[in-house]
């Protein structure tokens, strides 16, 4: 990637460093021990010219400009492993990696693929560049018809924030429909925003576009105000994270759950409906923004083990230790770039772990994962028989929906 930098002022290092203190717990960066845990646990740390720990080192040595001249910060997938294991509790992902990406963006150093995703988000409200009008097309044919709030304007109990990939991605749509059927079977009074819905923008935020994130949030916030509902559930852990942890600071506060939490609350109601056996070893992949970042580990597992015939197996990286699928922090839109650097994909690494755990099914709970993991099963010989399923798909299969 061609790096052309505008001449930086000598105090950029200092300005940047002190700007970090303004972020939540950002001051903790001063207590960095330079122990190297972050760089070691970072899935792509071995490839970065400046893995997280080294960036802090560079700041202290006042050579941060050198960091901005390399493009390796784009290998960061915002998985939060560094922050989770830092002995000094420095919020490395949010306070350092994301901020560094922001500086790269401001200087115009951005891989083309990512540029397209960000521009599409701004224009069309989704990173794929799909027509907003088609955002609810996945509902076509579903009976009963999915309640699109703009059309019916009815008050509902639950606002289901569907999300970009769950709405548009051809692989994910079957999982989205499965979830719709489950909600109907449970008698949930829910509605979706449909074509009005904007991207949650959380991955874009983590890719350095705070401004874009805030614009999307404001738009979604304005929509939420229009309708009557008691809580929000999301298909996507990234949307869950945005609405739980970032929206309140912008004045948008609603009770929000990930769909696995919502369904786990209703486990007693679900259990008798799980009629079909799924006789298989199922490994569960903890999504970064559901598990590690937001501490939701048990509910998805409770749902999976409730299915008759299922034997839950754990992979060697699990729970807080889970291995990122590589989609976060812009990774979804940096595939070519990251491949060029690493010649391996995090999703492939994870699939090998799934195979090693003897699982027949890899259960996931994030819309980035089915396409990423399924692609990986095609490139790993041993994984050709491994099935990848959203938890919603497994439940629906067992419920005969």
């Amino acid at each position: 990637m061609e790096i052309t930098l505008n001449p930086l002022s000598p105090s950029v290092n200092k300005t940047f460093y002190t700007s970090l203190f303004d972020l939540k717990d950002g001051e903790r960066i001063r207590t960095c021990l330079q122990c190297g845990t972050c760089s070691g646990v970072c899935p792509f740390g071995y490839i970065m010219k400046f893995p997280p720990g080294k960036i802090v080192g560079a700041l202290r040595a006042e050579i941060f400009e050198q960091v901005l001249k390399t493009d390796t910060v784009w290998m960061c997938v915002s998985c939060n492993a560094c922050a989770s294991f830092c002995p000094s509790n420095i919020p490395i992902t949010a306070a350092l990696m994301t901020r560094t990406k922001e500086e790269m963006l401001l200087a115009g150093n951005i891989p083309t693929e990512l540029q397209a995703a960000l521009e599409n988000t701004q224009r069309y409200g989704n990173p794929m560049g799909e027509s907003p009008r088609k955002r609810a097309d996945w509902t076509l044919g579903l009976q009963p018809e999915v309640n699109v709030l703009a059309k019916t304007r009815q008050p509902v109990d639950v606002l289901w924030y569907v999300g970009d990939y769950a709405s548009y991605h051809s692989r994910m749509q079957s999982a989205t429909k499965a979830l719709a059927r489950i909600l109907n079977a449970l008698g949930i009074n829910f509605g979706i925003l449909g074509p009005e819905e904007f991207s949650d923008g959380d991955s874009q935020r983590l890719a350095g576009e705070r401004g874009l994130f805030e614009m999307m949030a404001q738009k979604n916030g304005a929509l939420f105000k229009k309708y009557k509902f008691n809580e929000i559930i999301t298909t996507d852990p990234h949307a869950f994270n945005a609405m739980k942890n970032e929206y309140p600071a912008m004045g948008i506060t609603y009770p929000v759950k990930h769909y696995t939490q919502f369904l786990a609350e209703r486990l007693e109601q679900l259990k008798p409906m799980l009629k079909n056996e799924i006789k298989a070893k199922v490994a569960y992949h903890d999504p970064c923004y559901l598990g590690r970042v937001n501490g939701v580990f048990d509910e998805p597992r409770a749902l999976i083990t409730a299915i008759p015939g299922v034997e839950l197996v754990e992979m060697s990286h699990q729970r807080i230790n889970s291995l990122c699928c590589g989609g976060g922090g812009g990774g979804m839109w940096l595939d070519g770039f990251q491949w060029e650097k690493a010649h391996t994909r995090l999703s492939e690494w994870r699939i090998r772990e799934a195979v090693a755990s003897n699982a027949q099914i890899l259960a996931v709970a994030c819309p980035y994962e089915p396409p990423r993991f399924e692609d990986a099963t095609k490139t790993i010989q041993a994984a050709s028989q491994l099935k990848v399923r959203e938890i919603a798909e497994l439940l629906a299969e067992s419920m005969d929906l």
Partner: protein
Amino acid sequence: MSQDILVIIEHLRGQVTDTSYVMLAGAHQLSQSSGGGVVAVLLGHNAQKLASNLSADKVLYVDHPALAEFTFDAYQITLENLIKQQSPRAVIFGHSSIGMDIASGLSARLEFPVVSSCRTFTSEGKFISQICGGKIMAEGDLPAPTALITMVPGGYKAESGQSSQPPSVEIIAAPALGDLRVSLKQYIEPDTSDVDITKEKMLVSVGRGIQNKDNIELANDLAAALGCAVSASRPVVDQGWIPTTRLVGKSGKHVKPKIYLALGISGAPEHVEGMGDSEYIVAVNTDINAPIFNIAKYGTTVDMFDLLPVLTEKVKQAK
């Protein structure tokens, strides 16, 4: 005031462009409803021989050193005078790097409306233009008394604009052409060190759908297995993912392979202009509505990233 149809012939370095013949073919159709003749207009220097295979009722030839190769001022001034003198029913320009430079300016100067992107004429003498990336057709009456038209290829075959009988040539005096603001310094040849895609029997061509530079590897693998070359559409070349020598389209090469495998190419007119004459077009595109399927012989909406590795493997086995 005549009912003739003028056609502004384009030539580059001693070669009449294909578009010129397409315009002549279109002019013949139009002249049937206008009732006039087809008059080819050739500007150049020692270039009269270029008139020899033009299919026209007559050729008006203007010779001047400043007209040897196309430049803006020289051509526009010459044509302004000529069109005023001839007062035709219509003047057809190419929708090209030559025609488009001068048609609109002449339209404003002479106060004759100009119709863009005309593809064909109807038997009643209406124009049918192709706009919005080939997605929309617009039909209407030709403005009167004189209409300027820029014409895109694709509606008529170049052969229909060629003749084995040389037409009669009338020499028209050139106007004064001093004080020109635009001059040609030099031509820069396309890079010939690379493969000549116009000579390939088969092409594996990638479009925007390839998504990034790395995935071109997949196309390269298939092309290597098939023993042919990789070409690309504009967006891929603009990104720098593949050299310009591989560009197929309006501003790139015109190719006529036996099989043109279009991967992730939507089929916009600028690209089709460069490959529409391929014998068989096979299109791979996940968008069922992509215009490419209108000109392809075979198509599939299977994802190319799923298809390519499997196809390459099968090709290797078949060899």
